[in-house]
């Protein structure tokens, strides 16, 4: 058998020992199969790739939208919330203050909206082929990272252009990003499963995203929230992410330590619950067309 390509070829299915699959009615609450997810990593990659490819295929200026969207929003926010409403910005220039929040927020909202719709959008494939359904929301959350990476580079440029120099705090960025990814995935698991059961979710999403944005320190600093409500505010994981982004990038303000800890704990809960709920739905979604 002639292999073209690199020498790191994975084993051919026929060369690997034959796996044994058990088919039975769904029992119990959780049947996580991390090994299986790993086996399907190539398909996960293809789903991400398809998503990224299709997103800008028919658009006129293509990937430029990735930069334009947060940039235009930043301009609007700077004008209205900044210069007109004169909301405080922790001493940061308004463009940096808003852009540093909009880049993680845009990622989060794109990823969450993508994950919410992905099971319904792929219903056709779901009813025709087996693969761990979990890779669908995971792929939606991952494909948003491509856009994020591009927008992030612009963000770094804007920050530097305003003469701000991130310090060691910047090392926290990967962790904060991970927190945003986990939040999007956790909420996405819930919402994509709900969306498959009740199509109402589609109509709720615009309100939910708007509400969530105002419940996160995107247009205002978290310090605006009264001290005694801070703990409640911290239950929103995006609070920690966005405050963290501003702090880690600009080196200004204080580290949102407690906020991030609370956020992480909440994310773990949402994620675990989402996994359980998604798994319950997984067994029946192919029957719901």
């Amino acid at each position, binding site marked *: 058998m*002639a*292999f*073209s*390509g690199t020498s790191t*070829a*994975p084993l*051919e*299915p*026929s060369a690997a020992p*034959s*796996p*044994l*699959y*058990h*088919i*039975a*009615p*769904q029992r119990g609450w959780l049947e996580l199969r991390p090994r299986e997810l790993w086996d399907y990593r*190539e*398909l996960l990659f*293809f789903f991400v*790739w*398809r998503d990224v*490819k*299709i997103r800008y*295929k*028919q658009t006129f200026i293509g990937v430029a939208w990735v930069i334009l969207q947060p940039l235009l929003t930043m301009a609007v926010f700077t004008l209205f919330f900044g210069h007109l409403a004169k909301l405080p910005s922790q001493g940061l220039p308004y463009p940096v203050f808003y852009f540093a929040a909009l880049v993680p927020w845009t990622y989060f909202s794109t990823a969450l909206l993508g994950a919410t719709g992905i099971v319904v959008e792929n219903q*056709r*494939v*779901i*009813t*025709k*082929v*087996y*693969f761990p359904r979990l890779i669908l929301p995971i792929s939606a959350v991952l494909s948003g990272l491509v856009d994020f990476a591009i927008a992030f580079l612009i963000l770094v440029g804007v920050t530097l252009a305003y003469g701000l120099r991130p310090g060691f705090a910047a090392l926290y960025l990967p962790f904060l990003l991970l927190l945003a990814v986990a939040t999007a995935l956790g909420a996405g698991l819930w919402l994509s499963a709900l969306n*498959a*059961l*009740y*199509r*109402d979710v589609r109509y709720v999403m615009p309100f939910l995203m708007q509400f969530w944005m105002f419940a996160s320190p995107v247009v205002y600093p978290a310090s605006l929230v009264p001290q005694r409500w801070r703990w409640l505010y911290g239950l929103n994981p995006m609070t920690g992410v966005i405050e963290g982004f501003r702090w880690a990038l600009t080196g200004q303000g204080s580290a949102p330590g407690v906020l991030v800890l609370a956020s992480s704990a909440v994310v773990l809960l949402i994620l675990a619950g989402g996994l359980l709920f998604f798994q319950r739905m997984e*067994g029946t979604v*192919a*029957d*719901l067309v």
Partner: protein
Amino acid sequence: MNRVVIHAEALSKRYRIGPIERPMQLREVLTRALRSPLSLLHPAPRETFWALKDVSLEVREGEVLGLIGRNGSGKTTLLKILSRITRPTSGRAEIRGHVGSLLEVGTGFHPDLTGRENTYLSGAILGMRKQEIARKFGEIVAFAELEKFIDTPVKHYSSGMYVRLAFAVAAHLEPEILLVDEVLAVGDIKFQKKCLGKMGDVARAGRTVVLVSHQLNQIRRLCHRSLWLDDGALRQDGPTAEVTAAYESAMSATDSPPAQSAAQASSTAPPAARIVRWEIAEPSAPGASPHTLASLGPVAIRFVLDAPVPLRHAQLELFLYNAERVLLWSRQLSGLHLDSGRHSLLLRFPMLPLRPGAYDWSATLWDDEFRSDRWDSFPSLLVATESLQHPLDELSGPLNLPCELSVNSTPLLP
């Protein structure tokens, strides 16, 4: 004796019919919860039906198993359970080996992506490794005969091109166990033959195949053993020749109306009359199948109708569909009066210029007491005339018409 690779015990699958068939409105759930909060714990009893009842089977390595049965007899449900798309309601199964399932042509194709991109995407969704697709890529493109268009988005493909590429990807899937549902039934006959040949190769290569098909000829050609599913239950399991013969005779037997009629499901009143079979009355040749049309000349189709009671003011509609369920022709007949007994209905056409492939007759019948029958033909009409389509013509419709083309009154040579 080869080892057992599929072992299923008492597989059953229950579907709910009614509200669950469409996605629920949150409102329904909320109103129900408000009226009686406890009801959420006890889901409202819904009408259910068993798509699969207590089916046990064993398949050994290298076996090519045919699954036959009427529409709705549970064939696809069984394949879906074995391919893990859906879970059984009860029963269990064990499968040894990588499973590939082909339940439709073009699974995962996206119109905006090019032929090349779709080949990779669809291949991956069907369970191929990237390496494997890369290795077979040239072969797949050559099989589909699409070398020139492989970098064109598939939305610009003709349906013929689309189906060819989709088939080519599917045909190169080589899992240890292949589950195939009817996918070979579309496409032109030439390409179908090519796919059948490829399937035969797969079978000969020692892979295990479970094949669902309505075309008994395909089953006979490919499968050693067959299962006959009837109304969700296993009716017969044995050598293909025996099972298909029993199935065919049950289907054509006039005294087994449930095999052909959906009347009981659609109406409470007993049907006034039913069509019991159809055949090509002319041209007829000894030994030729009465359901295969091989010439492009005058055709007469006979429908045989049984009326247990006299029919008054009846309305009969006949339909002809292609394999994609597109209506090609229909004819309505109203004010039909028939005495009780057997009647023959003859349709004469100067020609049936259809592209080679499988077609289906269908009929509906009402009388003035609303006793109705809906009937889907069995078996399909197979058109096996020579294709008159120009070899370079990619966009082909359902017609197979002889045509002469002249430019400024100069005839063009074919």
